[in-house]
């Protein structure tokens, strides 16, 4: 049997070599489909790597408390990501932060409350500037680089603000001499104590664009607007070994405090990037689906060329049957031919896809991403495509009547 399989493989190889141009074009059809899938998977892989490295930079000791229960279904993730008001539902408060701080093994905890308001300097006025209300712990957890000045501290926190790089430029047309100047929010005056460095990372786990944000004390905002909602609490653990236990403790403490109303989620590690990661998974799934269509087109190409090949070689099939080939022999011979075509196409596509990914990586931050899963998926898909689109022509060849085939015009 093994010998026969090898013979079929050799026969198929000879047939493919004899029709070089035709085989190449057929392979190209498969290759383009595979290349687009590879390109998408590689891109998505590198994006999720970027997200992971973002967490890595912050440190493995980060725990995040977010409002709302953990979302797992695709619909709820999409809802969360597309709804502008998702933060409104928050039931976290600044006092929760204080409760968390009392738990052992926690070195810092800072709330994040985001609101929009009009900010005015002596020169310009901007409406709907993102204002991030937090505490002095914030800088301990997320070490933002300061361009000028410093983050506010216990002594000056009540009337100090920190500006994002771009916001500073917008308000004062400069970043150099911004520190020490005053801005007005809802009639109250605040002093600028620091300007953030430009943020180069494209993704932040806080969902905040720090370049355009204004950071101030959460109590100061409370006083201005009357009420603030905490959208996230960042927690820094004292040691990284017991993150699970600490998370559980936070959960317990908050549940107690809220009388069992669990409308929040505690996440650490990969869980922090969950919403963003899920979004990319959804996008990559859809793009892969679109690429799969081109793969199906490639498969139809294989089927087409195999049908031509079977029709062309009807006489040969008749001869082979007359000298003792069974229908199964003929089936295998043509199925192998289709399989070789599609697998060759897959290998082509793999190479083509990575060449494209490399070209793309030269002007985007997405490095080509290779994993054994991608290779396995490619191989399996091309195998399946080869079988699906090769079986019909092969069956057609196998069921030909030898007498009629022998009479077939040569």
């Amino acid at each position: 049997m093994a010998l026969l399989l090898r013979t079929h493989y050799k026969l198929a190889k000879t047939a493919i070599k004899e029709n070089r141009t035709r085989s190449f074009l057929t392979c190209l059809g498969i290759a383009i489909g595979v290349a687009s899938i590879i390109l998408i998977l590689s891109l998505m892989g590198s994006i999720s790597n970027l997200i992971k490295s973002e967490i890595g930079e912050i440190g493995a000791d980060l725990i995040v408390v977010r409002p709302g229960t953990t979302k797992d279904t695709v619909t709820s993730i999409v809802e969360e990501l597309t709804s502008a008001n998702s933060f409104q539902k928050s039931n976290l408060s600044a006092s929760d932060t204080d409760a968390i701080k009392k738990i052992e093994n926690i070195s810092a905890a800072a709330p994040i409350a985001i609101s929009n308001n009009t900010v005015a300097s002596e020169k310009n006025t901007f409406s709907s500037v993102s204002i991030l209300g937090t505490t002095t712990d914030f800088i301990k957890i997320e070490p933002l680089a300061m361009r000028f000045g410093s983050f506010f501290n216990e002594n000056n926190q009540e009337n100090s603000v920190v500006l994002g790089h771009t916001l500073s430029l917008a308000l004062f047309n400069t970043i150099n001499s911004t520190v020490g100047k005053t801005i007005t929010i809802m009639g109250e005056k605040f002093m600028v104590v620091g300007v953030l460095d430009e943020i180069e990372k494209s993704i932040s786990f806080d969902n905040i664009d720090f370049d355009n944000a204004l950071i101030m004390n959460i109590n100061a905002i409370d006083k201005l607007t009357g009420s603030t909602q905490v959208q996230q609490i960042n927690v820094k653990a004292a040691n990284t070994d017991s993150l699970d236990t600490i998370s559980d403790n936070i959960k317990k403490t908050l549940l107690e405090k809220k009388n069992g109303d669990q409308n929040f989620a505690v996440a650490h590690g990969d869980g922090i990037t969950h919403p963003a990661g899920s979004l990319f998974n959804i996008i990559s799934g859809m793009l892969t689906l679109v690429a799969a269509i081109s793969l199906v087109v490639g498969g139809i190409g294989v089927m087409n060329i195999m049908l031509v090949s079977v029709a062309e070689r009807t006489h040969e099939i008749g001869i082979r049957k007359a000298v003792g080939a069974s229908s199964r022999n003929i089936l295998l011979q043509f199925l192998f031919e289709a399989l070789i075509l599609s697998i060759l196409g897959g290998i082509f596509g793999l190479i083509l896809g990575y060449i494209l990914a490399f070209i793309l990586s030269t002007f985007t931050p997405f490095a080509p991403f290779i994993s054994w899963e991608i290779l396995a998926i490619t191989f399996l898909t091309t195998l399946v495509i080869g079988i699906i689109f090769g079986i019909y022509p092969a069956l057609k060849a196998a069921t030909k009547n030898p007498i009629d085939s022998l009479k077939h015009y040569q």
Partner: protein
Amino acid sequence: MSENTIIELKGLTKKYGYGDTESFALKDFDLTIKRGEFIMIMGPSGCGKTTLLNIIGLLDRATRGEYILNGENVAGISSHRQAKLRAKKIGFVFQNFNLINDLPILENVALPLVYTGYSKTSRLKNASSVLKRFHLQEREYYLPYQLSGGQQQRVAIARAIVGDPEIILADEPTGNLDSRSSHIVMEELKGIHEEGNTIIMVTHNPTLTVYATRVINMLDGQIDTDVKTVADANLPQPISVKIKKRKSDFSSLTDNDVKRSRRSRRSRRKK
């Protein structure tokens, strides 16, 4: 049934069409063929000669009737089994040669061995020595169209006998050849017959009947006349001896050697 009977046909009927278009290519056809016979089947066009040959060659099936090949009733066997028997027991020679144009002569001759489980080397070795017998060895790597008709038909005969079949079926093998090539081809067939092979040949040419040991005239799907020119006792018989000799001549490895080495390799792997 005597031991020397190789083919026995009883009440073989082949019907085409239904109702008004019904026609019989063979009608209650009875025939017993002994090992070593050289049968020529003659008759007008449409009398069922080729249909008979196709049924004997297991390429076609009778509508009803019995076909006993080597003591086994093969009338109702699966097409897979038909193919296996074709590969082992039957060699075909056609009027239009039916060689695969893309393959060199050597691989054309080796074709039947593909389906009986020979390795590539032993296939080509066997094919090469059969070609040598037909004085075509120096043309091994020619493509079929580069040879004359007579040469192509000799290649086809080489292909028919390479697997040591018991029966050789020839459908007008000289129909496309001039008289000189016809003569050479017939001499080759005669040589094969003298080694003990059973040959059944369809022809339109009455002068060729001198080669036959039995001449059957067919008419409307039935036997018209059946003349034996050689007594059954005088038919050439040394088939089994010859097969063994040829296999050991052609390659240093016999099939058993190959099997044995494969078995030992497998057992070594198990250890």
